[in-house]
């Protein structure tokens, strides 16, 4: 496989957010709150305005005059109007001729603040596990409660009840490219160029934050230097646009890597309690309780709890259950999506718990999972029918590999297994415009490639498959929100699944139209000497001869492909508070890890790794393999070392890559990837999304391998050497 973006990227020939420039451009810097919780008593912007090179300084007071509606009705104010809710929250912004002048001026704004009580952690808000009444606490910003069946009876009559509490940590996306954007405002029209995974979603978000019409704003994506969920919602754009209004000049805003960490919008800690009732060797009842730190988020975060809970129930038949979770507001930066949001942490808890339960019952952990894992036709906890699902096949494949590993397992080593469940977000729709020209196909759509290849390569491969045209004659083009057709964004592993189907539909209508024109029932396309040919049986027609005069004038045959996924439903009678989410399709992975544990220091080494990925259909197997390997490596970071550390004063203690430890090449074991095909998903040709699932089971697989090696369970992730040492009672 050769990706069309590979060579330009290797040569530095593509532009990222950091590379943005415009004539007459100013540089911006943010003034950030000095306390995690408090009120601004006074903030003088005058002195900063008079500093060299400074062109504009904006704070809460300026918003009223700069924006049409003053943006005061907006749910999320650009700057805090009354309360600072996290340390480092932007409270004002500066634009100046140079970056250094902007940063100097920003540093010169020293607000007088009155500090308020800081809740740095979930435990500060709820020292004891909260009761149902906590749903009314103002610091609870999301609440979900659901139940099904006579849970109490099942727990009373159980042979065994397995109860545990797990803790997870904050994890950052760590995209190589920090956020960066360039805002322009002229005559009531706004334009922002930015490194984003969701241009259209961002347009909607910005319009609501700034109190402007979507039609007055154009968002143009740049190439994205890694997103992992962190480049979706509005982040720096409101400040750049506000400064552009104030200065009447283009304004560029980018952040340092330390700021990237401190501004957050990522995975935050959680506390998870799991109780499971077993009878006759099978799970008959589940209780799941969750406290999710959502940082300084505003109310309305039910979805965070709802999504987490789906992962905490897992891909298992659940006869009876009761689940309750709270999203808890703390004085950390607001949480945000991060590759497979909520899943690796929830699955760490669930799959550790299931594993421990199997061991307690004396049943092989893979065998135990096989007893309850979903098969097609089973019902989910919310009574949705399970579609084609490859985890049973994945578990069986994993059992064979685990058996082979176990025959030569050195002392001190252990093997762990974990399942991860995911649903491709094909419900979020998209559109593409396909122009078949005499010399090739151009696919115009609204997403920028974020790195995994699903846009630049995946969409082209879909068209290749339908049309028979070679990849070299297919170009994927980008537009801004004014010129490209709508798409929901690159998230939820949906790009190939949903936007790919828009392309597939567009390509199929091209086939239908052309078949009709040549009077054949089946056709395909070829390229010869730079000319697109329509092949029908033995006949070959030059495309150019089949076009109408108008089409020729317009450069080709243009069709729109649209795909909006079907609505799915859950049994709402089981949901007592908040909301839960239906699944679009059923995918996931089974992972195996072999670790070596230093029994004296708690140090872990992952010796080898295997991933069995349910892909439905691998549209491009080598691209899938790359996604799985990348996901495993990223998951190993969360499993072993990545952790945001906050002090009791809610200060991030490790805002940099020295102490926020990403996996290094030396930590990466050999990774065996096996694709499970044949369980069709909701994507084109039965494909399932593969962007997120490979990260999900990793922390659990590693933790279960540690338990296998030592007989000791670690209830907290990441499994740093010191945590493992404590679990082993070495200190």
């Amino acid at each position, binding site marked *: 496989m050769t990706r069309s973006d590979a060579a330009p990227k290797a040569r530095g020939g593509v532009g990222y957010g950091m590379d943005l420039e415009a004539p007459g451009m100013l540089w911006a810097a943010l003034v950030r709150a000095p306390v995690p919780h408090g009120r601004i008593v006074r903030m003088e912007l005058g002195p900063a305005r008079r500093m060299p090179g400074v062109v504009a300084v904006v704070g809460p007071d300026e918003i009223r005059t700069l924006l049409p509606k003053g943006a005061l009705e907006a749910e999320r104010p650009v700057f805090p109007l009354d309360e600072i809710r996290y340390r480092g929250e932007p409270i004002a912004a500066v634009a100046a001729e140079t970056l250094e002048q902007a940063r100097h001026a920003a540093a010169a704004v020293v607000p007088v603040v009155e500090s308020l009580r800081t809740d740095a952690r979930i435990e500060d808000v709820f020292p004891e596990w909260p009761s149902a009444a906590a749903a009314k606490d103002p610091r609870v910003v999301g609440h979900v409660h659901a139940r099904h069946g006579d849970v109490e009876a099942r727990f009373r009559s159980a042979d065994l009840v397995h109860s545990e509490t797990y803790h997870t940590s904050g994890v950052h996306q760590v995209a190589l490219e920090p956020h960066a954007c360039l805002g322009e405002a002229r005559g009531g029209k706004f334009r922002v160029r930015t490194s984003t995974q969701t241009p259209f979603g961002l347009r909607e978000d910005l319009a609501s934050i700034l109190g402007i019409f979507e039609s007055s704003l154009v968002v143009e994506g740049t190439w994205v230097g890694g997103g992992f969920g962190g480049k979706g919602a509005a982040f720096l754009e409101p400040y750049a646009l506000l400064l552009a209004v104030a200065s009447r000049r283009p304004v560029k805003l980018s952040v340092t890597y330390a700021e990237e960490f401190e501004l957050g919008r990522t995975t935050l800690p959680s506390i998870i309690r799991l109780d499971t009732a077993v009878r006759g060797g099978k799970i008959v009842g589940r209780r799941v309780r969750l406290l999710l730190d959502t940082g300084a988020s505003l109310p309305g975060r039910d979805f965070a709890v709802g999504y987490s809970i789906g992962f905490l129930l897992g891909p298992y038949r659940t006869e009876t259950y009761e689940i309750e979770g709270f999203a808890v507001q703390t004085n950390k930066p607001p949480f945000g999506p991060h590759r497979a949001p909520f899943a690796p942490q929830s699955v760490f808890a669930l799959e550790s718990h299931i594993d421990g339960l199997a061991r307690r019952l004396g049943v092989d952990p893979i065998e135990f999972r096989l007893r309850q894992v979903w098969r097609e036709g089973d019902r989910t906890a919310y009574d949705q029918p399970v579609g084609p699902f490859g985890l049973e096949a994945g578990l069986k494949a994993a059992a064979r590999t685990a058996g082979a590993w176990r025959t030569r397992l050195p002392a001190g080593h252990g093997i762990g297994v974990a399942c991860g469940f995911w649903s491709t977000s094909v419900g979020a729709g998209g559109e593409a415009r396909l122009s078949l020209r005499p010399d090739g196909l151009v696919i115009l759509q609204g997403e920028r490639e974020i790195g995994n290849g699903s846009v630049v390569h995946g969409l082209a491969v879909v068209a290749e498959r339908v049309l028979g045209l070679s990849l070299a004659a297919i170009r994927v083009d980008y537009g801004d929100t004014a010129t490209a057709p709508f798409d929901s964004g690159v998230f939820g592993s949906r790009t190939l699944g949903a936007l790919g189907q828009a392309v597939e539909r567009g390509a199929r209508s091209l086939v239908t139209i052309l078949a009709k024109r040549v009077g054949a029932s089946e056709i395909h396309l070829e390229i010869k000497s730079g000319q697109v040919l329509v092949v029908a049986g033995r006949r070959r027609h030059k495309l150019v001869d089949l076009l109408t005069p108008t089409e020729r004038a317009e450069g080709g045959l243009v069709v729109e492909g649209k795909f909006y996924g079907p609505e799915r439903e859950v049994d709402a009678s089981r949901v007592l508070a908040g909301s839960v989410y239906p699944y679009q399709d059923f995918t996931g992975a089974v992972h195996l890890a072999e670790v070596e544990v230093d029994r004296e*220091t708690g*140090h872990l080494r992952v010796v080898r790794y295997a991933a069995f990925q349910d892909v439905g259909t691998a549209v491009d197997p080598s691209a899938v393999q790359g996604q799985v390997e990348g996901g495993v490596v990223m998951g190993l970071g969360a499993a072993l*070392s990545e952790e945001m550390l906050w002090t009791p004063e809610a200060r991030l203690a490790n805002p940099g890559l*020295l*102490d926020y430890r990403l996996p*290094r090449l030396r930590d990466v074991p050999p990774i065996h990837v096996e694709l499970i095909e044949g369980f069709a998903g909701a994507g084109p040709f039965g494909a399932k999304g593969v962007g997120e699932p490979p990260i999900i089971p990793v922390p659990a697989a590693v933790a279960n391998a540690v338990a296998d090696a030592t007989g000791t369970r670690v209830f907290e992730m990441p499994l740093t050497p*010191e945590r493992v*040492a404590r679990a082993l009672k070495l*200190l």
Partner: protein
Amino acid sequence: MSFQLVHPSTPAEAVRLLSGSATGDIAVLSGGTDLLLDLDNARLAPKRVLSLRKLPWRYLRWSADSLVIGSTTPLRAVENDGEVRRRLPGLWEAIRDVGSPALRSRATLGGNLGRGSPASDLIPILLALDARVRVVGPGGVRELPVDLLLQGSRRTTLGPAELIESVTLPASAPSTYLWQRVQPVNDISQVGVATAFVPQGPHWRIALGGVQPRARRMSEAEGVLPSARPSHFEVELAAQEAARRAEFVSDKRATESYRRRLVAVLVRRAIQTTLERMSKATPSRKAKR
């Protein structure tokens, strides 16, 4: 941030430039892997930065009984010297796991000593090998043991216009350096343990890093190991003694009790590895971790 960069080409000129500036106004730059961070974080805001790049201090000089390493020699050059690996395995182990290959191509021995960090991976092995430091300054040249160069956490006894010229080590010694980090590459050691066996005097040297307020020799633990062939019991006792006597703190990288635990384990392993090296003609390739 703006400063003037100066490149003296002789030690005398360097010392003159340093003597002519007030402390804080001038900073010394070797590989810059520590200094650039200080400048970036504005912990330092010098008017001038004095680069040692043009000084003739990049060398490894072997003689019958010693190795002299010039202070501006990149760590990568020491690591790539096959003789270092063969004759001073502990030094080689300490150096080859500093940061990453890219970092080691810039970082220098003089910079590591000049920094005097309690978390340094090089200071413990230099202590264990009885290294001596040659210093030039306004008063001429002086030589002192590494131990006397170190003062406190990130503090040395160097005068404001003094520079480290070179470090002198024995030409060979069975030795071992073991560290514990969360990650092997580009991470700071939670503790570091160096051991060496020297033929004359009290034979055993045990030095620790990741302890407070600075890396130090553990003479109490060394005293438990009287002979060239200590028993398992004596080795364990020395390890316990080192862990008991050292002072640790809790910080974001490790708690005090975990560091103490690690020292007890790693001292034992380091002595065992050194013993294995003594009994082999050629030292083994890699210490057991």
